[in-house]
């Protein structure tokens, strides 16, 4: 599937990049952008041979530009919940097992 960047896409990209363009500029940027993308699409037909050490991924295009917005995350709490050897006396709630057993030394 060939990427056909629309003016709307270029406008979204400008928004991500914290730039604004007049409608005249947008026309010209979008047209130049299409030419350059058509040219770099050239790499799609390149045969890649011995790249077992390089992660290969699908090159199928999925238009999934997401909103540039923050989302709530409980990642830190989840991680901390699973830390072994929790120590409630420690202000961070994380205990580090002793390296030396002082009782036997």
């Amino acid at each position: 599937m060939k990427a056909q960047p629309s003016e709307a896409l270029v406008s979204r990209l400008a928004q991500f990049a914290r730039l604004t363009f007049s409608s005249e500029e947008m026309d010209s940027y979008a047209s130049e952008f299409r030419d350059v993308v058509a040219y770099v699409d050239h790499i799609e037909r390149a045969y890649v041979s011995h790249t077992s050490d390089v992660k290969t991924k699908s090159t199928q295009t999925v238009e999934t530009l997401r909103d540039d917005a923050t989302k709530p995350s409980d990642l830190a709490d989840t991680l901390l919940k699973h830390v072994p050897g929790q120590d409630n006396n420690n202000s961070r709630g994380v205990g580090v097992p002793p390296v030396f057993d002082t009782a036997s030394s």
Partner: protein
Amino acid sequence: MNTERTISEITSGLHSGSFSVAELVEKSIEKAEQYTEYNAFTSIHKDAALEQARIVDEKRKRGEPMHDLAGVPCAVKDLLCTKGIPTTAASGMLREFVPPYDAEAVAQLKEKDVIIIGKTNMDEFGMGSSSEFSAFGAVRNPHDMERVAGGSSGGSAVAVAAGIVPFALGTDTGGSIRQPAAFCGVVGFKPTYGRVSRYGVIAYASSFDQVGPIANTVEDAALVYEAIAGHDAKDATTSRENVIPTHSSLSEGVKGVKIGVPKEFLGEGVNRDIAGFVRLAAEKLANEGAHVEDCTIPVSEYALPVYLVLSRAEASTNLARYDGVRYGKREQRGALNEMYIATRTNGFGAEVKRRILLGTFVLSSGYADRYYHKAATLRTEICSAYAKLFDRYDALLFPTAPEVAFKIGEKMDDPLKMYMSDTLTVQANVAGLPAISIPVGKVNGLPVGVQVMAPSMREDVCFRVGAVIERSH
């Protein structure tokens, strides 16, 4: 003192007492101020340069040991930080920026008592192939004022070609030293990636950027290269390998050296007369005892699109720092986001914005695999292809640019056409290899350069082959 153009001529003049460093620097600044029509400089620093010249004269009088470059005037591309001297990257964004430290390459030159007379004009942030995309206006070619000087280190190439300074520093991300050197009829050298520190170089595309010299002769370029090359703890990408001495190899000749001439780089899209100059250089190298034969690099056709994808991706991330808070210009507006947008929209020029847009696109979710990751994978393939080729050859010979200097404004409205001028120079940047451009003649009165590319860390081979080409033209 009017005829000395090479560093060795200058050094012998200083040794014999024919002129002082102060007189030499004064003359150099006089020329820089006289040739304003070339628009080669963004700033000239007369007082600081003359003060430094007097200090070097004093050292010389006291009989202190001096480096071969001591007292030699030079110009520095305005992309390298210079302590206490404005460093603008030819951008409205950094017009007022005065760095508190020197780039490592600049520090190395200062340590050797080189006198920096000024900063040279260029494409904004190094993004261009003509030195037209500058907040200070276009640089003009001394061979024809209606034509471009090449880019992005156009001001550095012009400063040398016009005889203002015997050498200048440039940076090369996709050909920005070699292509302007070819357009202006001087020598331009890009070292192996990691051979010269990038510390203090305003970043465009960090995995491609490299500092190098522009000079009148291969010997001068070698001398300056040796002065700035080597490991730097402040740049983790610099190599710890010893720098192979290059100066001594200049007179070794090319007997037994195996040279490949890639057929792909002499065909479609390359001016016939320029291709003819490459054939002529190949013939002369063969006459000097080199084994010269045609070769082929099948993946080379992907170097330009790979470069376009990766360099734009790196540019878009590197330039995200210019937000009106941390560096340079700030457009004071209501809310924070409005301030960011106004600062970036008014601070960056058209070509920089174009590259940021493409970079944002190729890194975006949904397109990164198709463009960025594919290009990164292909870059590995291209590196392997060149490494294999260098199992068979000691050096490759091909044109620096497919055409001579074009007219100012000719490609401004057609970015893709402009990008195509880099086809032959990006090969060395994508593969991270050293390459030198040597002037070999003229087509319709405009200079032509041929390029010698060598294996990684074999800068000495570039200079050795380059010196033979230079002598035979």
